C-alpha cells in the first residue's frame, strides 16, 4: 500500500432524473514515474495509479488508463448522467496491487 493515499471526490448530493452532472476526482498519490534516480544514481522504479474507474449503480461512467505522465495527485473532471437515485463508486488501481475506493450517493431531487 503506498503511503498516505487519500481519495477525494466531488459529486452533487442531488440531481434531477436524467441530469448531466460534473464530477471531479482526486487522489493524493506520488505517481513515481520511473524516470527519477535516487542519490546513488539508481532508477527509482515506477509506481503509479494505472487505472481509475467511475461507475454508477454498477454501470461504467468512465474508465481511465493512466500512464506515468499523469501528474502527482491525479485529478480528473468528467460528466455523468444520473438516471435514478444511487451510488457513484470510484476505484483507483495502484501498480503495487492496492485498490482505493470511494462511494458517493446521489438522491433524485
Amino acid at each position, binding site marked *: 500500500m503506498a503511503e498516505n493515499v487519500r481519495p477525494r471526490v466531488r459529486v452533487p448530493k442531488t440531481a434531477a432524473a436524467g441530469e448531466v452532472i460534473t464530477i471531479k476526482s482526486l487522489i*493524493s498519490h506520488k505517481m513515481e514515474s520511473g524516470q527519477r534516480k535516487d542519490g546513488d544514481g539508481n532508477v527509482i522504479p515506477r509506481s503509479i495509479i494505472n487505472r481509475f474507474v467511475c461507475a454508477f449503480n454498477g454501470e461504467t461512467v468512465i474508465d481511465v488508463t493512466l500512464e506515468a505522465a499523469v501528474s502527482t*495527485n491525479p*485529478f480528473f473532471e468528467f460528466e455523468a448522467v444520473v438516471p435514478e437515485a444511487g451510488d457513484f463508486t470510484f476505484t483507483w488501481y495502484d501498480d503495487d496491487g492496492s485498490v482505493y475506493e470511494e462511494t458517493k450517493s446521489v438522491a433524485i431531487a
Partner: protein
Amino acid sequence: MKLQNAIAAAAILSFAGTMGFAQTDNELTVEGQLISTEAAAPAHMENVGTVYSGWRFRSEETQAMQTDDFDNSGFVFVDDGFALMASVDGSEGKSCASCHEDAEEFAGLKAQMPRVNDSGELETLEDLVNTCRTERMGAEPWKYNGSQMAAVTAVIGLQSRGLPVDVAIDGAAESFWERGKDLYYARVGQLDLSCANCHEDNYGTMIRADHLSQGQINGFPTYRLKNAKLNTVHSRFSGCMKNVRAEPYAIGSDEFKALELYLASRGTGLSVETPSIRN
C-alpha cells in the same frame, strides 16, 4: 556595482516578453468569496506603493485552480490535516480536537502570525502546534516543515482565509521586525542578491521564465505545481537562499522567524489565501 546592476537589469528586461510586464488585473473569487489580492502598501515600505498577492503573478490556468476548493489540490492535504487533528497522539491520550473541537475557533489566528508571546519569544504557527503537542498532548513534536505540520497549519490558516493580514510590528515585536528587515535587504550568496533585489526592485518582470512576484507569504502553506504538495514558508525561504547560492539559515531558525514576521508585515492588508496555488 552600478554597471553590474545595469547589465543585470537589461538582461532581466529583455526577457519581459510574452508573459507581460506587470501583474495581471484579475480578481480572485474563491467559492464565491472575493479575496483581496492587492492593498495599499503599509507605511513602513518606502519603495513600494501597492502590495500584490503572488496569485496576481501566476498564469491564468494556475489562477483558475485556486478559485475552486476542489480544483485546488492543496485541499487533499487539508483533509489530511483534519484527520491528523482528530487522531489521538501522545501520552495524554488526546487529539488536537479534544481541546479544539471546531477548527473554526482558529479564525483570525493565521492573520496575526508570527507574534511575540508572553515570554518575549517570537512564535510562529508551527511553534504553537508543537508547543501544544509537547506540553499538552505529551506527543513528539512534528518536523517543522514536514507534511504533517504543513497539513495542520493549512487547516488553521484556512480558517483565516479572506481576512486581512495584520501582524504586530511594534512594542515587543519591534526588535524581531528590524532584524527581519535587515535580513530582507542583505545581499547573500554567490549571486550576491537580497530578497529586495528580486521581489522589491524587480517584481513583475521575468527572471528567465519565472514571473517574479513580490514574495508575499499570505498564501502559505502553498500547493506548489513544482512538487505537487503543500510547502511551508521556511522551506520556501530555504529554497530561495539556495537559488542565490547562499547557505540557507536553518528551518525554524530565529533568522527565518524574524524574516517571516517582516515578510508578513509587507503583506499587511492582503487577504490570507491559505492554501494557495503557486508555481
